[in-house]
């Protein structure tokens, strides 16, 4: 085929330009390590890499929340651990003081110790995180949620708000605990009713009857009677002048003043110390029982009110214990009063322990879940990143080889160009 001179020149030139372009692209790839420096070269790989990038971004967003969640949960765990330790100490002290041989200076020391414990508990409940936010205040995180009043009562100024974080697709995890759920809303008494001794029970020369926390045998009936109907029961244990022991159970509806407005005897019998006294439900069959200990003084009636249990705060339980210790010692009546107080406190402490243990268990399982989700997410991220890098990273041996090939080809093209340009018939015409 005939070739024009311009064509020879153009062909040689465009060959060199092409090789230079290839070299330029390869050297760009070598210097950046990125095979997709011009995304238009490989749109499929680029769009796969973008999609993977979007997935990695999602996972990272979950991972970040997960990290915050774990931090929050760990802080709660460690502060609740301290609360548990404190409660164990208090329980030991209460058991120790529930003893007829305890003297008044022992009790005084115990009161001082308990006042310290109460302050420590308030401090624990006002735990702050690294940013100075109170972790047990619900949505009140900028001011102390628990305020110790002059009268020893503790006010909760927060609410029930719980912080949640999304750590996976439709996986919302609670990462904080509202203070009222941990410290305030602890079921009182046995969870259904609580026992309150009448105020005149333990005067001078009185007997030693105490009533245990009781247990519920028919939960539905008890719920209905105590909570829904608001019925209260009064258990009275009496000894006549000759020491004959009887008990009676009467029921009624509490008035605003606290005394039973309409009273009717629903059960009675001979009392033996240590006896379980049945509390009959509205239909007459037993729904609960309470165990009574001790003897009333001759001619005395010692009575106890059984009412639906209100939530009892841990602070109140601590204060109750201080109150019980302050009831003094010496006389059998005082000892019995203390014993009754301590019995109630021990019951409440056990409820509190159950509550805090269940909160801790919840936190623990959340933490475990967060950790396993986190490790799953991070291995997924690694997997996506590996795929992404296989799409977008160059293979150095391959690119270096291509670079050398292109560079050889360019040299060859240049040499060929020079030689072809030198071939002219004019060289031989003189």
């Amino acid at each position, binding site marked *: 085929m005939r070739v024009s001179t311009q064509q020879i020149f153009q062909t040689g030139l465009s060959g060199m330009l092409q090789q230079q372009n290839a070299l330029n692209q390869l050297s760009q790839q070598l210097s950046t390590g990125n095979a997709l420096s011009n995304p238009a070269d490989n749109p499929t790989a680029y769009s796969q890499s973008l999609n993977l990038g979007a997935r990695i971004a999602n996972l*990272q967003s979950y991972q970040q929340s997960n990290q915050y969640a774990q931090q929050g949960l760990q802080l709660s765990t460690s502060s609740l651990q301290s609360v548990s330790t404190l409660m164990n100490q208090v329980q030991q002290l209460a058991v120790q003081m529930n003893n007829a041989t305890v003297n008044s200076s022992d009790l005084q020391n115990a009161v001082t110790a308990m006042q310290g414990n109460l302050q420590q508990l308030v401090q624990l409940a006002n735990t702050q995180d690294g940013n100075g936010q109170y972790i047990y205040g619900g949505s009140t995180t900028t001011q102390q949620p628990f305020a110790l009043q002059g009268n020893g009562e503790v006010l909760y100024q927060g*609410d029930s708000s719980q*912080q949640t*974080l*999304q750590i996976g697709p439709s996986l919302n995890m609670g990462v904080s605990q509202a203070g009222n759920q941990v410290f305030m809303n602890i079921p009182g008494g046995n969870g259904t009713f609580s026992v309150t001794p009448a105020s005149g029970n333990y005067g001078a020369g009185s007997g030693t009857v105490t009533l245990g926390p009781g247990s519920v045998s028919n939960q539905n009936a008890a719920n209905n009677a105590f909570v829904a109907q608001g019925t209260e029961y009064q258990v009275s244990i009496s000894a006549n002048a000759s020491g004959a022991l009887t008990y009676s159970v009467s029921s009624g509806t509490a008035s605003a003043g606290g005394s039973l407005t309409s009273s009717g005897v629903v059960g009675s019998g001979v009392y033996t110390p240590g006896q379980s006294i049945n509390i009959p439900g509205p239909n007459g069959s037993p729904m609960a029982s309470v165990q009574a200990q001790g003897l009333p003084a001759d001619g005395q009636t010692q009575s106890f009110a059984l009412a639906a249990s209100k939530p009892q705060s841990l602070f109140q339980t601590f204060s109750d214990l201080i109150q019980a210790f302050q009831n003094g010692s010496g006389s059998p009546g005082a000892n019995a009063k203390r014993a009754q107080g301590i019995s109630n406190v021990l019951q409440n402490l056990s409820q509190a322990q159950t509550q805090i243990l269940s909160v801790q268990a919840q936190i623990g399982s959340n933490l475990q879940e967060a950790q396993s989700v986190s490790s799953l997410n991070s291995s997924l991220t690694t997997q996506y990143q590996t795929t992404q890098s296989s799409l977008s990273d160059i293979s150095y041996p391959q690119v270096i080889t291509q670079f050398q090939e292109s560079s050889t080809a360019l040299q060859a093209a240049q040499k060929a160009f020079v030689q072809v340009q030198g071939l*002219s018939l004019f060289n031989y015409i003189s």
Partner: protein
Amino acid sequence: MSGVSGLINNSLTGLQVAQQALQVTGNNIANVNTPGYSQENIIQSTTTPSFLGGQFYGNGTQITDVQRVYSSFLQGQVWSASAGSSGASTLSQGLQQILGVLSSGSVSTQVQQFFSGVAQVAANPSDTPSRQSLLGDAQTLSSTFQSLGQQLNNIGQGINQQMQQSVSSINQLSSQIAGLNQQIANSAGLGNGTPNDLLDQRDQLLTQLNAQVGVQVVRQNSTQINVFLSNGQALVAGSTAFSLKTQASPYNQQNLDVAYVGAQGSADITKNLTGGILGGLLQLRNQSLQPAENGLGLLADGIAAQINGQQAQGLNLQGTSGSAIFQTGGVQIFANSGNSSSGATIQGTITNIGNLTGSDYILTKGASGSWQLDNASTGALVATTSGSTSSGVTTLNFASKGFQLQVSGGSVAEGDRFLVEPTRLGATGMQTIMTDPSQIAAASLYVGSPGTITSGGLVNNNLGTMTLSAGQFVSGSSAGAVQVSGVGYPLPNLQLQFASGASSGSASFTISNNNGSTLASGSVALGSSGTAIDIAYPNDPPGGYYQMVLSGTLVGKGDSFTLSPGGAGSNGNAQAMAALATQGIFSSGTANANQQAAQLLSQVTTQANQAQNNAQAQASVLSQAQSAQQSYSGVNLDQEAANLILYQQAYQAAAKAISVGNTLFQSLIQAL
């Protein structure tokens, strides 16, 4: 003539022809690099012989023609390949620019960074530095969108400028071609020869014209050509050239269209232009740049709408509803400059991001108050509606496309048209309008806690087991829900209280405000899934309800719950905002922000790849056409060198023959 004088005369013609042939060869050598030059050859023939004494004697030689080596077929291929190649390479270069803007602009990174800031606020809702840093992230996000939108807009302006240049080149080329037509016609009368150089020049101009815009070349006769645009309108007819001009688009005055200037005024032919730089630019603008701008705007609009919507659902640190964090450019609407009415104002609002697409629409007022919406690029009918009118404002709701339009301030004449670009300004107009970090609404509207507020503290004496769930936003109240309305900012504490106890059946309750007046009452079936308490938002948007669910099995007399506004530590709303990062908010809820960004980018990348491949293919088609044409018509210097030797020798031989004639003549003279 005969004898010696015949020898001399014949040799003389040989001498002259050799000279002229050397002249043509010299011309070929001189024009070896002239673009469009076709090599010229001489056509040599004998002259008419003399009849003497019964014999024919040759009378030497002559040049009958100086011919250019030319194939109209090969030239035609160069023309069409030139239109294809320059169009494809313009498109590919433009797409590389768009891709460069979008891929280096790292929208995805900024979106990720923003949501990571939200997650941080969700984890530390009352921490001011976290809030401050979220606002910083929002600022970076909006300025990234703004700058990307601006850069795309600049590409659009660049297209306008290039269109002007291209149209002015086209006009210049067509008038030059018309001029050459005239010159060629004039010189055609001068003899047998053809004006090769003028023809070459005209062919070269046609190659240049095809590089600007695809045209059809029709040969009228042996000398004249006519040039038509692809829609059949003549650019050059004989010695007359017609011109194109750029004019502002009838809708958006910022965009240029191309019009044909004819005898009866100018007509818009933008849609009919293909090929060449102009065709490539128009294709780039309609098929790549505007969709990219709309796509980026959609992304910006979507993120802004979702974040602002979530803001409105929560409470800020001041205890009022969160104000908008972002502002975007809004729906852009242009009236056609040919509309017969001009009084009405049309405004658009985006109503549903999930239904919104990156398309533009043409709104046409039809007969008897109806309106028609067509897709601007495909022309397909989207919807017809007559809208709903109240107090002079007609609302046209195109819910299936995610926006609505409001026509006010006058009537619109039948046949008037409007261009609606729902997302075009989304990115360029994006701004972070929040400056106070305490305005970020991290908190839930209400928190339900068991108990009542007594002397500043929450006291819980509830006997029963009822619980009040954490709340969430619902757009509509569900059946059987207890609705609480009439609460305003600052939100009051609400008190939910059971009047009497119950352990079976249902329990009734009242909800009152802090003044003790009852706002709502209802009952809950014990042991059921509960009763929803729907508190109407005082603000619209969001305009729905904040829903909490009351459930449980046992109620004591006087059991109560306090509903208090979410405090500084509440993260309910921030957490919902953080969840938007992974939530499908685009394309009917199938794509989240990151996926949408990836989708936009991969769409542009695919286009760029196609354009790049096409440009390479077209370039090689052009190069083949050129080399076929060159191989036929181009000058080869070796060939010319050989010709030089050939004609030089012919010249020398003819000269020698004259010299021989001279010697013969001398001999004859001397013999006398």
